[in-house]
C-alpha cells in the first residue's frame, strides 16, 4: 500500500507491506472477502460461479446456502445441525451475533407464514415520505400521470439538484421490492443531470402513490411450481429526446416474480421489430443467468421455459435462419436468442 502521510521514507518509491487489515483502509474490504471466503471454503462450501457472495454446501442429507452482504449473512437450508456447525465455526473465527429467524435485512422486511414468504420495505418507504415531508399528502392510484410523457421540457430548471438525485436514488432502492414504481423510476433517472420543475413534480406524484400502499411487496408462495416464464416488451421510440427505445422484461418462477427490469436501449432502433428483437436478446441473457443460478442451487427446471413476446415479426426473425439485408446488423442478437 502507499505510505500514509506523515511518515518519512528512507528511499524514494518505497511502499508499505500490509500485515494486518485495518478498518477504513482501501484494502480492508478485499482482505475481509478473502478471509471469509477461505473460512467457508475450508468448510466444504462451494462459491457460486455467477454470484460470488453465494456459498452452497450439499451433502447426502443436507443442503445449505449462505448469502453474504459484506458482514451480514443469511443462512438457508434443510439441516439445523449444519446450521449449528457453521454458526459455531463463524463465531470462533469472527465473533458473530445470531439474530434468529430472518426478519429484517438491508431495509427489507421479511415475513413468513404457512402460505409463503413476503418481502416489503414499509419502514424504508415511511422514512422516505417522512424525510421528504410528504407524510400527510393525499393518496393517488397510479405512480405516474398517464397523459404526460417525461422529456427535457422547457419548464423552469429545478433548483436543488442534489435533493432530486437523493430522492431518485431512494426510489431506486425501493425498487428491490416494488416493481410498480420501476418504470417511473427509470423515467425519472433520465433527468438526473438537469431536472426541471416538471420532473420534480412527477417524482412527488410517485411519493403520493407510495403513500397509498406503503406495505405492498413481493410474495413468494410456498406451493409454487418450478417453471420459468419470461415476458419481454419494448416501447419503441420511448425516449422522446434521443429516440431510443425502452426495454422491459419480467421473469416468473412459478407464481413468484423474481426479476424485472425497465432499461433504455443503448442504440437507436430503425423499426419496432428491431427494438423488440434487441429486448428479446437481453431477456435471453437474463434467463440464461437465472438458469445458471438455479443450476448452482441444484434445482432443475421441470418444464420447458417460455419467453413471451408480443411482436410477430421479432419472433419470425428469431426462428427464420435466413438473414435479410435489413436484419444483418442484428445477427449477433439472433444467434444469442436461438442458442
Amino acid at each position, binding site marked *: 500500500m502507499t505510505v500514509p502521510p506523515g511518515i518519512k521514507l528512507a528511499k524514494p518509491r518505497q511502499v508499505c507491506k500490509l500485515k494486518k487489515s485495518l478498518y477504513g483502509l482501501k484494502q480492508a474490504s478485499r482482505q475481509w472477502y478473502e478471509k471469509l471466503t477461505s473460512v467457508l471454503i475450508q468448510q466444504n462450501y462451494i462459491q457460486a460461479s455467477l454470484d460470488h457472495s453465494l456459498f452452497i454446501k450439499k451433502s447426502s442429507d443436507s443442503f445449505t446456502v449462505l448469502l453474504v452482504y459484506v458482514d451480514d449473512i443469511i443462512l438457508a437450508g434443510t439441516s439445523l445441525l449444519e446450521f449449528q456447525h457453521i454458526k459455531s465455526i463463524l463465531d470462533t473465527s469472527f465473533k458473530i451475533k445470531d439474530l434468529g429467524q430472518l426478519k429484517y435485512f438491508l431495509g427489507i422486511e421479511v415475513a413468513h407464514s404457512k402460505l409463503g414468504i413476503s418481502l416489503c420495505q414499509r419502514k424504508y418507504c415511511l422514512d422516505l415520505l417522512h424525510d421528504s415531508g410528504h407524510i400527510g399528502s393525499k393518496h393517488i392510484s397510479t405512480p405516474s400521470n398517464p397523459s404526460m410523457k417525461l422529456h427535457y421540457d422547457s419548464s423552469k430548471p429545478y433548483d436543488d439538484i442534489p435533493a432530486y438525485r437523493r430522492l431518485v436514488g431512494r426510489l431506486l432502492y425501493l425498487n428491490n421490492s416494488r416493481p410498480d414504481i420501476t418504470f417511473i423510476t427509470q423515467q425519472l433517472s433520465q433527468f438526473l443531470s438537469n431536472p426541471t420543475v416538471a420532473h420534480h413534480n412527477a417524482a412527488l406524484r410517485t411519493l403520493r402513490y407510495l403513500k397509498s400502499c406503503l*406495505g405492498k411487496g413481493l410474495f413468494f408462495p410456498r406451493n409454487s411450481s418450478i417453471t420459468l416464464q419470461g415476458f419481454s416488451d419494448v416501447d419503441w421510440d420511448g425516449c422522446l429526446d434521443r429516440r431510443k427505445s425502452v426495454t422491459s422484461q*419480467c421473469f416468473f418462477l412459478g407464481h413468484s416474480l423474481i426479476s424485472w427490469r425497465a432499461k433504455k436501449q443503448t442504440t437507436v432502433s430503425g423499426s419496432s421489430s428491431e427494438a423488440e428483437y434487441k429486448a428479446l436478446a437481453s431477456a435471453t441473457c437474463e434467463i440464461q443467468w437465472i438458469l445458471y443460478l438455479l443450476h448452482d442451487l441444484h434445482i432443475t427446471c421441470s418444464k420447458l421455459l417460455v419467453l*413471451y413476446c408480443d411482436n410477430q415479426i421479432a419472433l419470425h426473425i428469431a426462428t427464420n435462419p435466413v438473414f435479410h439485408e435489413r436484419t444483418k446488423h442484428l445477427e449477433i442478437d439472433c444467434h444469442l436468442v436461438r442458442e
Partner: protein
Amino acid sequence: MKLLLVSSQDQIADFFTKHLLPKTFSLLLSKLGLIDIYQPPPCGGLLHYIEEEDNSSKDKSLLAAQVT
C-alpha cells in the same frame, strides 16, 4: 427454450414500458402477485363471512328438505 406470441393485452411486461391508466395499472399489478400484509382484506374480511354463512344456510335448508 421456447418463444411464444402473446397478445398485447396479456403482455405483463407492458407494465414497465408505459404510463398506464388506473384500470390497466391495477389489472397488471394484480398479475405480478404483489400483496400488502399490513392492509386487511376488503371489508375487514366480512365478505368471506357472508359467503360462509350463505353456504351454511343452504346446508340447513338441505337438511330441512331431507327431514321433511
